[in-house]
Structure formats: C-alpha cells, structure tokens
C-alpha cells in the first residue's frame, strides 16, 4: 500500500477513492521484515482493511510514512495544538467564550494568560481578538483554548493591541502562508512593511503604517486564494509599480 500511496502523491483525489492494505507481491528474504506503518493525516480515514479518502484535494507525503490531503476548504475544524485568532463574545465568571469560526464556541480561562492570577485578571473585553492555542479539541467536548505554552510563557499569544484589520481567507492559503519559506509571504514582504498574524482557522490580522496599505494587503491576500504563482507575481508586481 505504501508504494501505491507514494505513487499517487501529488494527485488530485476525491472522497471515496480508496487504497487497500494488500502487501507488495515480492518480499525480500534478506532484509529484516518490518511492518508497513502509515500515519494518516486529515482527509484520510481507515475503514476495515481499506484506506479511504474523505476530503477532496491533493495527496501529500512527508518522509517517512506520513500522508494527508491538502484541501481548499473554508470551514475550520479545531485540532489540538493549533494556534488561532478568536473573537471574545461572552465574559462570564472565570471563562471567556471565544468564536473561532468553528461549529461551536471555545472556552478560554482567565487564568490561561501569562502572569495572570486570581487577583490579577487579564484585561479582556467583549469583541477583543485573542491569539491562542487549542488545549482540548475533541469532537465530543467543548474546545478549550489557552494563551500560554507548556512552560507558562505567552510566546506571542494573548490579546491583540489596537489597530489592524482582521479578515478571512481559505484554510489552504493559511497553510501556504505558514509553510517555511512561503512564496506568498516572500512576495508580500517585498511590497510593504506590515505585521501579519496568521490563525490556522483562516483568519488573518494585518497591521500596516496606513489604512490604505492595510486595505491593499488584505485585498491582495484575499484575491491570491485562487491564483497561480505566476498570476500572483504579476499582480504583486503591478501593485508594486503603483497601480493600486
């Protein structure tokens, strides 16, 4: 199965496509016999002795045995450890309710901020943006967010300062932005200096020196969702030349 999976890496697959667990025909007698293990990421699901594709997209592979589907969806499903941009909707007692664009709201304890104690509460208002991480993301439980890492440091998370604009893009673009040496980001860096916060839930926060520049960046990022690399470069070049 490993070989067929590797063969189809980079191909577009649709829900319902399947791989069977059959072993390869030839078994080497000299080498040690190792069981074939495959790590399935999002979009691949095991069902009996088959491996089913359950999201449409491109099959990706990472050494040695990790496979997942790269799709262009917009609906966010929380996963443990992912960092997101959320909006505080309710302040009740000792938890905040945070909207992150998923099917239900997540809870965020007021103690889950750096340096906060029972007496020293963080200053969070309804409508504020928070950059936080999922501690619990289980499909049967309410998701829970924290704004600290495992050692109790903020590590970039917490409540946003004033200014800036938040907008939504597809999850595929977010993942492209977060890849190391991202092309989109490299193209963007050549345009204007700006602050960019990327939430895995598809929300982006941009702050730049002027309103106009912030608007330009947000519109550029929203439009490069459905563009090829060449089209994007052409567009960015046009913007750099001053055709706003």
């Amino acid at each position, binding site marked *: 199965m490993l070989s067929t999976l590797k063969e189809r890496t980079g191909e577009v697959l649709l829900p319902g496509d399947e791989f069977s667990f059959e072993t390869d025909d030839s078994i080497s007698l000299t080498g040690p016999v190792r069981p074939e293990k495959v790590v399935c990421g999002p979009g691949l699901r095991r069902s009996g002795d088959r491996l089913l594709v359950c999201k449409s997209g491109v099959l990706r592979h990472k050494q040695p045995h990790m496979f997942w589907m790269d799709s262009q969806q917009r609906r966010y499903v929380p996963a443990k450890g992912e960092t997101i941009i959320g*909006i505080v*909707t309710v302040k009740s007692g000792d938890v905040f309710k945070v*909207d992150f*664009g998923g099917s239900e709201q997540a809870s965020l304890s007021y103690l889950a901020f750096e340096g906060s104690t029972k007496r020293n509460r963080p200053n969070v*208002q309804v*409508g*504020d*943006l928070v950059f936080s991480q999922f501690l619990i993301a289980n499909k049967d439980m309410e998701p829970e967010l924290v704004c600290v890492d495992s050692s109790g440091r903020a590590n970039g998370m917490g409540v*946003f300062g*004033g*200014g*800036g*604009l*938040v907008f939504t893009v597809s999850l595929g673009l977010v993942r492209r932005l977060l890849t190391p040496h991202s092309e989109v980001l490299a193209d963007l860096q050549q345009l204007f200096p700006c602050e960019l916060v990327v939430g895995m839930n598809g929300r982006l*926060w941009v702050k730049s020196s002027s*309103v*106009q520049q*912030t*608007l330009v960046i*947000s*519109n550029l990022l929203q439009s490069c969702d*459905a*563009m*090829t690399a060449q*089209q994007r470069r*052409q567009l960015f070049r046009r913007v750099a030349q001053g055709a*706003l």
Partner: protein
Amino acid sequence: MKDTPLSNCERDFLLKAIEEKKRLDGRQTYDYRKMKITFGTDYGCCFVDLGKTRVMAQVSCELVTPKENRPNEGIMFFNIELSPMASPAFEQGRQSELSVKLNRQLERCLRNSKCIDTESLCVVSGEKVWQIRVDVHMLNHDGNLMDAASIAAITALCHFRRPDVGIQGDEVTVYSPEERDPIPLSIYHMPISVSFSFFQQGTYLLVDPCEREERVMDGLLMIAMNKHREICSIQSSGGIMLLKEQVMRCSKIASVKVSEITELLSKALENDKKARKEGGRCGFAESMPQERITALKMDETSVEMTDVTERAKDIVQKTEAPPQLVRSPVVPVPGVGQVGQGLQNTWGLEEEDEEETEECDNSDEEQEEKVTKMEEEEHEKEASREGDVVEISDSEEEDVVILHPETPDKTPKNTESRSHQKGAAASKKRQKK
C-alpha cells in the same frame, strides 16, 4: 447558528477607513458594486449579483377570486425568503425582523407605487383575476439585500409572461404557451431602491453598504425611485436625525444611480429577448456552466500577449503548406476501401537528402556574411532556390503544381516555406559542426 461576531478591531478600522474616504473593497463613496443580471430558462426568473450578494426572484401567476372591495383588480403578492444558505444568522421558516422589514419595503416599493397595471390582470370582474406572486430568495448575504431584492423583483416582473386567456360567453379558456404566445405584464415604470448608510451620526454617507459596513453603520436611508425621478417610497431606519439637505442630496444621488441601473436592466432584458428569439442557449443554460466549483475561479484572467503576433508569424512561415491533393481519375466504387488515396507520397525521400547537402554548401558561404547583409542574403537564397526548383522537377509536389491550373499563387508560397525549412536544416547542421 449565530452570526460571526464583529470584533472591536474591525469596527475601529472600518470607521477609521470611512473617515479617510476608503472602503474595504476599494470603491469610492458613491460607487455600487459590480452588478450582474441573469435570467433563468423560464420566463420570470431572474438572478441579481451585487458584488457577493446574490438574490433570485421568481414570478408565478394563478387565477383566483378577487378581493370584494376591488372586484376588477389583480392581486400582487410579494414574499422574501431569508434562507440559512445566505447567511448562518438567518433561520429557516421564521419571520425575522429583517425579513418583515424587507418584505414591507418591497411591497411599498412595487405595489404601492402602482408600477403594475393591476386592472389588466382582471379576467372576469368579481370572479376571476390573476394573482401575481413574486418570490425573492436570498442566496448569499453580503450587505444591501434591499437593493438587490428590488432590482431582482422588478426585472423578474418585466421578464414574466402570463398565459393568454380567451373568453367566449361564460367560458374562459387559458391557452398554453404552444397555442398562443404568453403576454407580458403591463408595467408603467420601474421603481428601484437605493440604500444609503450613515456613519458617525450622519457625518459620512456611503452608497451600497457591504455586510461589514452595514454592521457598523448608525442609520440607513432607502429611497425607491424610478427613472423619471419620481420617488416611490422613502424610509429611514436606525434612529438618526437627518437634515433636509442630506435627504435632498441622497435623492439626487439616487436619481443618478437609478438611471444607471435602469439602463443596465433594460439592456439585460433586451439581450435575453434577442437570445430567446434566436433560439440559442439562454438563461441557465448559458450562464451556469461557467460556475464550476472544481476549478480555481477568477472573474477575469489576464493573458500575456506581448510576443503572440511574432510567434504566430513564425509558425505561419515555418510550417509546411498542406500537401495538395489530386483526385485520382479512378473513381472508387462506393463501399470499397482504398489505401494511400490522397496522401503525400513518401517515396521520394532520397532526393530530399540531396537537396539538404546542396543547401548546406550554400549556407556555409552565407554564414560567413554578416547579419547586416540580410537583404543580400535573401536574394542569394532566392537565386539558389530557383536553381533547386529546376533541379527537382521530378518531385511529386512539383508535378502537382503543374497539374493544377488555378494555383499559380500557391507555388511561390510553397517554395518559400521550403527554403525556410532548408534554412533550418542547414542551421542544425551548422550547430553540429
């Protein structure tokens, strides 16, 4: 499901941007978003796209008994559906405040302005009249639903055709569209609603607010007007105080916008009429296949065409002219297959090679000459080629030329292309050396 809340940061940014006369999508203060009007396959079905807002209107008719106080008038009925498809905040099957407001406004805009001749909808006075029902479905909500709904409704009404009715004595017959052409409604004028949103207690004004702008606005003014600049309805909501000058200014802007939209609307109707008359693909059939969901979609794609003409010329010059076919004098019996009919003869390959070697010698000399002497070179080539033509008189193609009396203009072209090929071949050889 609840709607996505608006964060403080968005609110602050939007207000700041509006103060600086900037809008999220780069529009000017008085600009409408891109509007598109399309029609369905049936009469009376219309889609309106206003930016990302999408609205569908469907008109239908029915024979009913009239109201007692108005025995000889048809009945107009308007219904707006806010389905969860448009926005997660809308709930199915429940009249929300917004839907009541929109419904009422649409009724005032279209029914109370008396833009449709209801008396012409009467079939038998006091017994049978036509009831015209307009269903407006919101397909996507990105602000300014009212304008999109009013445009969709009036366009659908203009597009609609009701079945013809014949009366003989007491007998009423409704003719099917095959028997008699359906009749359009008689419409006196087309009221169109234009929305203005006010910010900072009426200091700033925007036309056609998008969804996020609608969330931060203080007040809304909707003016329904026709192209004769007659105000059909006017409604202000949100509880802001408007000055007389502001309302006057808004009505002036509205008159400009209405005339633009009316023009677009009548053009769309005309195009559709033409398409239907020609019997081509119209409505859904024409508009739907473009909206594929499996492809990366972009509204317009720019194409790099700087060197297209040069490349095209190149191809035209370099390709070989298609071989000329000669009808064999033997007429095949129908049903009998023949092999090799009408194809180029490939038996003469040997001499091609000869030519190339010859040409090679020539080109070697030419190569030494400078590029600036291109003209001369061309002449030389021409001369050498003429020689070639004489030599290869036994080739198949040349035979063809002789046989055909009406192709004297083809011959030079043919030979020219040949010379080019040879040139190419020669250059290849040069590279080898």
